[in-house]
């Protein structure tokens, strides 16, 4: 086995204790409630009989340890309980709504990377210039912006004042039918169905929430890019590269940026934590039918199985994304694997 494969499998093995921890915390949140969990899960409208039925169905009359294994067993079968408000299994609800959230999150991330990375590079190259100051102002303002407030402001300006954006209600205007479901991403599905009208309609609908979420992630990425580029630009190997007579383009992108990319990719892990949380707020503002707004509706209706299923799903998604980031890090950086020796 090559050293790189070893490093990668070691990294994958490291997620196991984290996953175990996530499941334990999620179990504690679900079952160790200060009140009677059976009453919580049965819902607000439950009577004594249905509470008792819930207790037996969930195995809440058994000892804690046994309950934990039952919980893990159910989870492995994809059973996260049943939502009271929709009456369907939580896992089905989440799976159906997940693509909407992912489409929004990924659009926002791509958008903010496209702006933040060049901005950070530019600010680092022209340190002290107006670009650098602009970058610094954006970064400081960006971390102070409440996402839900940005969303409301954008709706006012682009929907009410300018009339550029469609009404901020969901993924598609009611004039259009949603495209046949293949991936669940409206942009991709409408392209697959060759329906350009629906494609542009869903793009228009996606624009404002995407920008809101993108603005929020802009700050950390730009800050990290700038800092990493500054470190790389003042390094010895870059001086050597310049002294060897390499062109400025080659020095900047071939040497400085490739090295600066590593810390930037690592920050993406942190950014995901924020963005998955901010997603909930943005979905609420734009009535976006993703898993965030599902959780908010469930919270308001005291639908605990749905909320806990959502928390668990988000944590698993986050652990998985972090794993993906670390693995891509191992692939970008040729030195990884040699450190083992």
């Amino acid at each position: 086995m090559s050293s790189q494969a070893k490093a990668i499998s070691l990294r994958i093995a490291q997620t196991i204790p984290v996953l175990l921890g996530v499941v334990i915390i999620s179990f504690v949140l679900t079952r160790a409630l200060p009140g009677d969990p059976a009453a919580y899960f049965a819902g607000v409208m439950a009577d004594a009989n249905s509470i008792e039925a819930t207790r037996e169905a969930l195995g809440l009359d058994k000892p804690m340890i046994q309950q934990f294994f039952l919980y893990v067993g159910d989870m492995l079968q994809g059973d996260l309980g049943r939502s009271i408000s929709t009456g369907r299994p939580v896992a089905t609800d989440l799976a159906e709504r997940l693509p909407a959230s992912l489409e929004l999150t990924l659009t926002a991330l791509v958008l903010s990377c496209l702006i933040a990375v060049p901005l950070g590079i530019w600010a680092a190259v022209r340190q002290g210039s107006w670009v650098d100051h602009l970058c610094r102002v954006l970064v400081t303002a960006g971390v102070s912006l409440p996402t839900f407030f940005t969303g409301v402001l954008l709706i006012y300006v682009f929907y009410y004042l300018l009339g550029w954006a469609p009404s901020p209600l969901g993924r598609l205007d009611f004039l259009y039918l949603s495209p046949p479901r293949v991936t669940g991403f409206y942009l991709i599905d409408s392209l697959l169905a060759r329906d350009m009208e629906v494609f542009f309609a869903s793009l228009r609908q996606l624009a404002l929430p995407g920008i809101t979420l993108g603005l929020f992630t802009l700050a950390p990425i730009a800050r990290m890019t700038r800092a990493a580029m500054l470190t790389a630009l003042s390094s010895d190997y870059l001086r050597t590269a310049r002294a060897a007579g390499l062109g400025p383009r080659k020095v900047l992108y071939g040497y400085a940026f490739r090295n600066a990319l590593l810390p930037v990719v690592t920050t993406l892990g942190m950014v995901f934590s924020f963005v998955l949380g901010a997603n909930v707020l943005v979905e609420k503002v734009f009535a976006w039918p993703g898993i965030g707004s599902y959780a908010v509706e469930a919270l308001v209706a005291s639908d605990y199985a749905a909320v806990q299923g959502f928390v668990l799903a988000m944590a698993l998604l986050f652990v998985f994304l972090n794993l993906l980031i670390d693995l891509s890090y191992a692939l970008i950086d040729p030195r990884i694997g040699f450190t083992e020796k």
Partner: protein
Amino acid sequence: MSQSIDIRTGGWSHFVYVLRDNPVTLVSFGLFAVFAISAVFGPALVPYDPLATNATSALQPPSWDHWFGTDNLGRDVFSRVIVATRLDLTISILAVAISFFIGTVLGAIAGYWGGWWDIVLNRLFDTIMAFPLFVLAMGIVAALGNSVENIIYATAIINIPFYARLVRAEVNVRRDAGFARAARLAGNSHPRVVAFHIIPNALPPMMVQVSLNLGWAILNAAGLSFIGLGVRPPTPEWGIMVAEGANFIVSGQWWVALFPGLWLMLAVFTFNLMGDGLRDLVDPRRRT
């Protein structure tokens, strides 16, 4: 005695130097004073009762009578925004204080005694950080029950790892330092050495963390109440006021959501700037 005075005046002149050097920090301290005043004296200063409804003057745009306009029930938005300061600051300061305290204790245990404690506590912090933090806060509030108190606990829990990790690192490097050993030889017990000899050295970086965290805690609490957790209407609170105002933004009544949102933003901005300023104040590399 004379030496301690020297240190104090040295610290004070450094404080003045930093403020002069960086006017932004001065502005942030000024803004903080404004927020502190409106938190303490807010209810006595505002022109209207923040809860008094008045159907005849509903949804009025900003005017001389109502600086920030009125909401759909005719309540004065300015009064509500100012009065809300106390609740928002209380939530975030209490949450940060709790996580500061618990994080310090746990971090000191992990850093000083090491071994199993260190491994178990680190695993716990890793697991907490493995959740998207806002989502974990939602889950905690849902599990504990929907109240302001539980918002504070949830915000505190998700902040604990940041302090614990910081303290753990600071305590760990000083565990075997000369002064710590001397204190131990002089007959101090382990907890006493940690609490009175090692922790004070870790305070400066922690104060920076506190200031940066306060801004984040306000955002977090406002976000939770925006989605309908914790604070209940008609209590004035910035997050919930933006949520209420969002219903009127599509029909053009911008002032109901704008002003609480701006105030929230300004508060977070103030704490972030103060954090940067405090970092300059305590960063030894800048103290020449």
